[in-house]
């Protein structure tokens, strides 16, 4: 059996671990994951891409799908995601204001139109009156992991990325990371939903239940996500 | 055998001019075309074999009308059964000497290819690329290729201009031999008076006026 998952880019590392654990417990099942910006995946599902399960980076995109009749069952919040600033060389102890430092020439964010993490970053910058001051420095990645990659390669001094990406084993400790506190930028509720399809949903709903189950709590936590109260 | 009554505009050394021809060529005749450079000899041959379209007129070959401007008839070259040897040879560079000749045969007969190679002294060059031949060698391949098809009507455009004196004589004999053997009607361009004397049964002088009458080869 196969489960085809469309997953928001911030889940890139966590979900791989969850997948490994799941496949170990269910050896007959293969989980195929496609990562992308939530908006991109929404567009693909609307155009008939053969996904069974959609894990977004916010509630709006899965709800939009539901309203267009492309889903089955309810949209469920599965975790809360957090935004972080990350830099390879610039000390981020100043918090958000670090974006104004002269040595910061480029600031990477995800595309606000398609990636909720990007939208969040823009909103936060606007709320603190910083957006207009650095508008010329902003470079946009297609989704949150491309934004992260711009920062990790050092082509952009600062990146607004998902905390989960900064905590990934590959990245951890390779630069400065500043987790935006809840009052500066509240955690993002991320929703998931089953996609309408022919008759492949049985295995998919099993995977959905698994993702929501306590079995995954430890993994979610280790990537800095906020758990949903059950 | 061939009835031709056509006209076609040309740009010549003396400015624009109309080539007008109205003659009838009997079967088994060997007609030599004779005339100034740029007078329209090649143009006439190309109209006969269907590569040029006359501005107006009529061409009959055998009992088939191959061109008639009034009836909008224009039989394509493939269906005219007319062999044509190009003044600039037009050999196929993707084929060697032997393949060029074999390609021309309607019915593939290897012994005929051999005899053509022999006649035109090309045996040793049979596997040579045609781009690597001397001028006279190319001319001979083009001539051999035209003969390979054994057409009713044979048009030869200066077939021997680039071969040496001895070879020229022996190839002249070959032309006559094939002409007689296949019962062909041949129209050939030549600038060489001796050659015309030897080969032609009739001569057509391409000049500035409308061409209507043959001349006698001996009067040249």
């Amino acid at each position, binding site marked *: 059996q196969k489960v085809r998952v469309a997953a928001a880019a911030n889940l890139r590392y966590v979900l791989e671990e969850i997948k490994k654990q799941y496949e170990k417990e269910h050896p007959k099942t293969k989980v*195929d994951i496609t*990562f992308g910006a939530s908006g991109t995946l929404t567009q*693909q599902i609307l155009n008939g891409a053969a996904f069974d399960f959609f894990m977004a980076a916010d509630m709006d995109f899965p709800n939009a799908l539901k309203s267009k009749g492309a889903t089955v069952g309810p949209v469920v919040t599965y975790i809360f995601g957090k935004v972080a600033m990350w830099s390879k060389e610039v000390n981020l102890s100043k918090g958000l204001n670090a974006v104004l430092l002269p040595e910061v020439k480029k600031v990477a964010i995800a595309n606000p139109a398609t990636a909720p993490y990007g939208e969040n970053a823009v909103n936060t910058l606007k709320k603190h009156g910083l957006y207009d001051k650095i508008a010329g420095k902003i470079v946009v990645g297609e989704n949150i992991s491309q934004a*992260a990659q711009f920062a990790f390669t050092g082509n952009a001094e600062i990146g607004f990325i998902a905390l989960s990406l900064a905590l990934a084993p590959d990245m951890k400790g390779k630069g400065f990371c500043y987790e935006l506190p809840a009052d500066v930028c509240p955690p993002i509720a991320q929703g998931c939903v089953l996609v309408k399809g022919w008759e492949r949903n049985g295995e998919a709903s099993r995977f959905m239940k698994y993702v929501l189950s306590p079995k995954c709590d430890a993994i979610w936590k280790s990537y800095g996500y906020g758990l949903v109260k059950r | 055998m061939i009835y031709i009554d056509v006209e076609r505009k040309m740009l010549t050394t003396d400015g624009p001019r109309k080539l007008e021809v109205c003659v009838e060529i009997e079967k088994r005749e060997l007609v030599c075309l004779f005339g100034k450079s740029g007078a329209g000899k090649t143009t006439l041959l190309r109209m006969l074999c269907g590569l040029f379209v006359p501005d107006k007129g009529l061409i009959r070959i055998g009992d088939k009308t191959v061109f008639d401007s009034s009836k909008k008839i224009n039989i394509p070259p493939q269906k005219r059964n007319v062999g044509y040897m190009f003044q600039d040879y037009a050999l196929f560079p993707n084929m060697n000497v032997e393949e060029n000749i074999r390609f021309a045969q309607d019915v593939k007969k290897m012994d005929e290819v051999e005899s053509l190679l022999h006649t035109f002294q090309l045996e040793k060059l049979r596997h040579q690329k045609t781009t690597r031949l001397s001028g006279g060698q190319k001319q001979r391949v083009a001539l051999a290729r035209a003969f390979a098809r054994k057409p009713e009507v044979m048009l030869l455009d200066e077939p021997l201009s680039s071969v040496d004196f001895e070879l020229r004589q022996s190839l002249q004999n070959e032309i006559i031999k094939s002409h007689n053997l296949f019962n062909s009607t041949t129209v050939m361009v030549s600038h060489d008076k001796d050659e015309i004397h030897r080969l032609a049964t009739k001569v057509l002088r391409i000049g500035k006026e409308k061409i209507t009458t043959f001349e006698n080869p001996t009067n040249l």
Partner: protein
Amino acid sequence: MSSEFIQTLFLTAKLALSTTLILFVIGLPIAALLAFTRFRLKVIFEALINMPMVLPPTVIGYYLLVAFSPQHAFGGLLERWFDLRLAFTFQGVLIASVIFSLPFMVQPLQNGFVALPKSYREAAYTLGKSKMETFFRVLVPNIKPSIVTAIAMTFAHSIGEFGIVLMVGGNMPGETRVASIAIYDEVQSLNYSTANHYSLILFAVSFVLLVIIYSVNRHFRI
């Protein structure tokens, strides 16, 4: 090498080979038509054939997405009659790739045909050969370098295809996840070593392929 890695490379090769094969079969007659015939509106036809070259892949991708959508006439028809959906499938990507690479097959072939002296055709005609026979025995063999270029360019262009596949194919493992997409993905996962791996393999394969093509091509030159 992981099985996923091999799957991706296999898919890439499959797409490029299928595209090239299909395009060679339809490209040869189109190129001949453009090179040898005159008709009214030929310029228009020629421009249309070459459109995919000038249009960004995303434009083509967008229009294909629209066409493939079950909401629209063509996509709806496919869905109702054949239960077929093209978006995000191999077939859909193949169609996109064929359209996208069409000019890269036609252009070099057409240039080759145009450069042939007219007298080759004329000579074959006066030898009583039909247009077909002339085409396959005289014209095609004399444009071998152009044929090699056309095939190489088309194959290459399909391997490098990214924008359209991303739009109409998405990133479905085993179905539409070709190498160019996989590399993009791996770079984003900061799996530089895997990205490197793919890149190096493609680099090596492409390089060997090109060296072979250009060595062979040399022998075709007349």
